């Protein structure tokens, strides 16, 4: 087999690997979401902000000081929870299915740095 044909065989194998990657990710996500469901009840005492359809929901959340807020990425795109104040809160990249926990002790204005139109706010009650 000449070198050029070997190169094309490699390219064909690469395309097959790319084709398999999607279904593999689906299976992995399916297993991961099964695991998350088992622990979601532990958030009962806290508050949850969901990331869906390129938006935080609720966009404005009011909680008591010291409440643990769980940010859940239920979207199909990666997001971040990043405080608008430099050097403040930063979750890093949260891929779909991932969560980020934050104990809130002060009001927070935050944004997804991947999608700057996606903003949220946490206010303190009382």
């Amino acid at each position: 087999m000449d070198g050029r044909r070997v190169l094309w065989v490699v390219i064909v194998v690469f395309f097959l690997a790319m084709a398999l990657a999607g279904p593999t990710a689906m299976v992995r996500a399916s297993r991961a979401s099964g695991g998350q469901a088992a622990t979601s009840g532990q958030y009962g005492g806290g508050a949850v902000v969901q990331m869906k359809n390129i938006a935080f929901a609720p966009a404005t959340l009011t909680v008591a000081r010291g409440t643990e807020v769980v940010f859940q990425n239920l979207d199909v795109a990666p997001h971040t929870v990043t405080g608008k104040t430099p050097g403040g809160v930063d979750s890093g990249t949260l891929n779909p299915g991932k969560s980020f926990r934050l104990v809130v002790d002060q009001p927070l204005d935050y944004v997804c740095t991947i999608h700057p139109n996606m903003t949220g706010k946490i206010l303190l009650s009382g």
Partner: protein
Amino acid sequence: MDIIGLLNDLTGGNLLLWKVVGTSIVLFLAGVQVLLAARFWGVSTVPSMTVGNAARWHRILGRATLTIAVVVAVSCIAGPAGPTSPTRVLLHSVFGTLVFLILAAKFALIRVLHSGDRLLPWIGTALFLVFGAIWATSVADYVTVR
């Protein structure tokens, strides 16, 4: 390494927008590829260029199209790939898988086995349609959300 974080940094925090642009360019080029192929297969006089030039541009644009498509696909697979709900997302993953299966079949036929030339018009048309479906299940939704 966090590929999505890296790509997001490289795109100045606008990864999703760049994916939208990339997917749209791929669909446009896939349409041009069909026209060029029709020209050098002798079933169309559009675009007005020689058959040889049409074939050469088909190869050049094909490589550019595949490069962009692979980069966009990697940014999908490394990041958001996995959810099967809503249906739009599931279909997007299915079409993404399909496009690479068709590409693998195409190059296996024409570059490795050196056969199946008669299937090429069907393969090319299928690729264009699947790229269209990928665009419809991603970019269209992005535009709607905006």
